[in-house]
Structures are given as structure tokens and as C-alpha cells.
């Protein structure tokens, strides 16, 4: 029995490592290039381990005009958006999953259908709207747009989760006299923790990486976000790849931190044990 277990685990690790290698090779290559001077970027044959590694690219990227400012702008926008999105999409999802009322289907499907529309197409009407609301060149404008456009995707996700939670807990709470808000806050949210963690991760991702809207709605150099800054490293005639990759790696770091923080919520236990009682 023990022997079999060991064998099974070994195979598991082999498969996992193989997968990880594939996932990670492009990154290693990117990382290795970020340590290279431009002369070595296109050398033939390509070298994985840089001949004369240098952190010059990282210094240049971080020190580049306003890079830190763009970094913090992106941080503000992403964190605000995540908070709003988690709150609002769970509210919507709860209501759509649990309550019958006129307009339930229509409203839900209207959310859904907007997912299928490429956002590039309504960029101009959106721009005109933001302008009319005097929200151009403001991080608040970005936060509002990001929050609104992420609602459909996450409401859809959470509705599925909420729908599968057995009703007993809620029914018990209702008998005890809890109203909708209390049920939402004290019962549904804690139960949906893995799903909410997922929402946090992806909402942060989309807000952190978004480029087109950020470029369109913001001209003021002091309000720009990181993705736009990364594009600024690419010139009309050529690009310093080492620099771009170094900047990109710096940009990835918060995302990884968020992931590590939230992924521990994918843990069995509270979610299910509470239902069996």
C-alpha cells in the first residue's frame, strides 16, 4: 500500500514539473533577456544564461520618469475596483440566484449579453460619456468603468456558486427573523469564500492589466497607469527588449503577491462542513 502511494506521488510530481516547465520557459527566457544588454538580445545562437548579466534594465525601468507614479496609480485603481466589484457582483449574484421577482431574467441576461460584445466597439460612446460626466483624466473615472464592466462576468460566476448552496441555512435564518441584508452579509458571503477569492484575483488582474480604456480616458501624464507606461517603452522604430521585459516583470510582482495571498482560500472545510450539520 505504501509503495503504491509513493509511486503515485512520484508520477504526480513528474507530470506537475513537466507542466510547470512548459508554463515557465517563456518566463525564464523573458527573465534572462531582462538581464541582457541589447547587444545580446538577438545573438545567435540564443543563450538562456546571459553572458554578461546586468541589472541595468531593472534600474532603468524603475527609475524611468514617473514609473513609480504609474505603479501607484495602477495600484489605487486596481484595489478600489476589486473592493467595489466583490461587493456589487456578490450582491447582484445573490439576488439573481435566490429571489424571484419581475425582471430577474431580463436583468441577468442583459448582464450576460454585454460579455459577448467586444469592448473596443463602444470605446467612443464611452469616451463621450466620460467626458460629459467630467471624469476624464481621473482615476475615479477608470474605477467606475472597470467596476461596471467587470460586473457581468463575476455576477455570472457567483450566481452559479450561490445557486448551489443548499437553502437550509437561509431558511433557518429567515425563521430566526433575519432580513435580506443580514443573510447576504453573514451567511452567503462567508460560504462563498473560495469564489470570492477567485473574484479578487481576477478582478485585480483585469484592472491591473487594462490598457485601451486607460489610454483613451487619461491624457494627463501624472494619472497614467502601468500598462500605458509599458507601451511608452516601445518606440516608433525599435524597442529595447531588455528594458520592456524588466519593466514587465516589475509589473507582474503585485499580481503574484495577490495570487499567493488569496489562493489559500481554496481550502476545503468551512464551506462544506457547515452544510452537513
Amino acid at each position, binding site marked *: 500500500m505504501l509503495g503504491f502511494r509513493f509511486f503515485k506521488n512520484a508520477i504526480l510530481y513528474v507530470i506537475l514539473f513537466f507542466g510547470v516547465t512548459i508554463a515557465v520557459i517563456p518566463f525564464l527566457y523573458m527573465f534572462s533577456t531582462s538581464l541582457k544588454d541589447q547587444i545580446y538580445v*538577438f545573438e*545567435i545562437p540564443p543563450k538562456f544564461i546571459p553572458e554578461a548579466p546586468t541589472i541595468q534594465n531593472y534600474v532603468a525601468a524603475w527609475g524611468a520618469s514617473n514609473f513609480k507614479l504609474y505603479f501607484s496609480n495602477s495600484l489605487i485603481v486596481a484595489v478600489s475596483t476589486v473592493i467595489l466589484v466583490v461587493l456589487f457582483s456578490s450582491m447582484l449574484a445573490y439576488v439573481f440566484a435566490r429571489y424571484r421577482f419581475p425582471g430577474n431574467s431580463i436583468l441577468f441576461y442583459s448582464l450576460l449579453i454585454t460579455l459577448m460584445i467586444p469592448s473596443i466597439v463602444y470605446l*467612443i460612446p464611452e469616451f*463621450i460619456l466620460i467626458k460629459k460626466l467630467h471624469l476624464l483624466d481621473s482615476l475615479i473615472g477608470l474605477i467606475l468603468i472597470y467596476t461596471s464592466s467587470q460586473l457581468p462576468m463575476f455576477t455570472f460566476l457567483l450566481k452559479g456558486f450561490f445557486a448551489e448552496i443548499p437553502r437550509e441555512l437561509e431558511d433557518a435564518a429567515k425563521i430566526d427573523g433575519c432580513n435580506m441584508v443580514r443573510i447576504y452579509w453573514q451567511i452567503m458571503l462567508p460560504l462563498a469564500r473560495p469564489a470570492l477569492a477567485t473574484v479578487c484575483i481576477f478582478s485585480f488582474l483585469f484592472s491591473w492589466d487594462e490598457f485601451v480604456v486607460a489610454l483613451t480616458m487619461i491624457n494627463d501624464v501624472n494619472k497614467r497607469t502601468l500598462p500605458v507606461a509599458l*507601451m*511608452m517603452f*516601445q*518606440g*516608433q522604430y525599435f524597442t529595447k527588449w531588455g*528594458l520592456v521585459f524588466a519593466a514587465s516583470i516589475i509589473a507582474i510582482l503585485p499580481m503574484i503577491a495577490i495570487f499567493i495571498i488569496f489562493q489559500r482560500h481554496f481550502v476545503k472545510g468551512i464551506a462544506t462542513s457547515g452544510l452537513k450539520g
Partner: protein
Amino acid sequence: MKKIIFWLIITIFTLSLTLIGTAEEEVTITFWHTYNVESNEYITLKDVIIPKFEEENPNITVVEQQIPYGDFHTKLVTSIAGEIVPDVVRMDIIWVPEFAEMGALASVDSYGSFSTIAEQVFPGPLNTCKWGDSYFGLPLTTNTRILFWNKAMFEEAGIEGPPTTWDEFAGAAEKLTKPGEKWGLAIGDCSPWNFLPWIWSGGGDVTDEGITTATGYINGEDSVNAIQFIVDLFNKGYIADTIIGGGIGMQDGYANDVYGMFPGGPWFYGMIGGQFPNAEINTSLWPAGKGGSVSVIGGEDLVIFEGSENKEAAYKFVEFMVSEETQLILAETGQIPVLNTIAESDYIKNHAFYPIYLEQLKTAKARTVHPGWQRMDAAIKLGIEEAIHGVKTVQEALDGVANEINAIIEEYK
């Protein structure tokens, strides 16, 4: 009594405010450009040129904003649609007719100093600012493409000096190529920017002078022969795969002795110099064909947007940028000035690499000055791709392009 004094004070106060107000108004203008923020050109703009302008015009503040190059066109379009536009824009010369035609630009020929300046700048670049009967901007800088040749590779292959005719060029390409290792020629892609010099030097053209038809021009005998010339070189393997979307960059290949020749411009000195300080750069004029040595004009114009609320101040800035002082500063950062006077100056004559560009500029032509140019560009590019990939014969491909261009011309009538 108290009441009278009170109202007196109010009146004096208000009057003094209006008096202050009628002194020269504080104006802020926004200037959009695509300079790479790490580049010398940008630093010069920010730390030298703009402060100088603001010193000479204390009531005008210039706010410059960099827009990533790849998204510049989109950004301009959305801004116009949303009616929030910059005052001055440094715009690629081929976009000016497009934006002028749609009414986005303000004409500048009514300003006092315009006619004087117009006589001082190169006619070719100036023409790119014209649409209909008016001028919608002034040229800022210009450039053109010449031949960069790798002396080390030439010597190794036993070729004497750079090619000056097409036959010499073909011969050089052949000798320089070592299959899989080195290529005689590298071309960036199949766009008109790379191929028009061949078409023009071969004696062909895109359309007639009045831009009424492309038939007989883009698909005329001379154009076809020019494209065929390059297609033959490609089929023989002398051209690197950058032309079909692969390969390493021009400057990387040139500096590493992989590419023997490529069409380059003044911006390459900074690029190559910055990354490959030991690389030697040698240039020559475009190889002459039936039509002579005719290259393509590039560059940027300064335009003022119609939606700008500070056109006077904007024009002052444009004026300043085209003035002799500023043009000289721009020249020092690798951007070729457009003023005749500077072109004749000792500075230019003794400059390390400018003279050859100015020589080439004497005969260089601009791409078709037409609002539909973007689509014509795409059509020509597609046709040449088809010819290079062998999907169609050169004649067939160019016939298709002629039809496409004629359709575009029709649309704008």
C-alpha cells in the same frame, strides 16, 4: 456714509480685478507627440526647447504629453470624436490629409508669418501639409531613406564600394549572401515605405499627378519591373526573412554582420550607436534605376486642431518650432531640419552624416497626399506581399492594387 464707502471699496476692488484681467491672458496649450521618453529628442524637447519657448512667451504654458506610437492614430480619432483635442500635434506627414479632410485641423495659411515661413522650408515636406487649397500645418522635421551598407561584409565578399546601379545592387546582394548565415539585403516589410523608392527609382509611380487614377501607374511597366526586381532577389534567397515577418531587427543584423545592406534613416545612428558602439556605419545613395535615385520622404508636420481654443498661442508654438534656433537644436538630436537656410549652413555641411540625406532629399518624393492613403498603403502592401509570397504574379498583384486604389479615389470624390 458707511454704505457709500462700502460700495466704493467694492467698485475699486472689482475694477482692479478687471484691470488685472485685461493684462495678457494666461494660456495653456497641450502638445502631443510620440517621442520615446528615454530618448534624446524627448529630453531636449522637455528641458531645452519648451523652457526656451515659455521664456520668450511668458503667458503661454506648454504641456507636452507623450502618446505611445502604436496607438497614436486611435487616440487622435477618439479624441476628435469626443471633442477633447490637443492644441498642437506632431503628426506623421501621411496622416495630415486624412485629418484635414475630415475637418479636424485648422488651416494656418491665414496667419501673418505663414507665407514667409513657407518660402523658407523644403517644398516637398511643405506639400504634405496641403489639402485642397489650404495648408493645415508646417513641417517640423523630415527624413528619407538611403542605403546602409556593411563595409566589413563587402570587403569579405570582395565587392568594391557600395552599388550605385540596380545591376551592381543585384550583384552585391548575391555575393554577400551565405544561405542560413548572412543575407545581402534586409527589408522590414512589404509596405510602400520600403518599396516606393524602388518603384520611383525604376521610373514608376502610384498614381498620376492629379491623383485621378492608378491604372497604368502602379501596375504600369516600370512599377512592375521594379517590384519584379526585388521579387527575383527574394526568390534567389538574397533577402532576409524580415520581409515576411521573421528575422532579427535591421540594426541587430547590420551590426552583427548578418545583413549586408538595408534601407535606413537618420534614426538608426542613435539606435545602432546606443547598442553597438563598435559598429561602423556606411551609407550611400539609393541605387539608381531608370528613374534615377529617388527615395521616399518621411517626417513629421506640426498641426493645430480645429477644436483648439488657443489657436493663436498654438501657432506661436508652431512658429517657434520651425524657427532657425529650434531647428538647429532639433538637428543636433538627429532630426533633419526643414529650413533651407540651415540646409546650406556649415553646421550641416560638416555634420557627420546629414549631407547624404540632404542630397537624397533633393530628389525624394512624398507618398500620395490623399486622405485615403491609409487604405491605399494597405492595398499596396497586400499586393506586394502576394507577389513576394508567389501567390500571384507581380502584374496580377499590381493590377489588383490599381483597382483597389481607383475605388478609394472614387470614394473621396
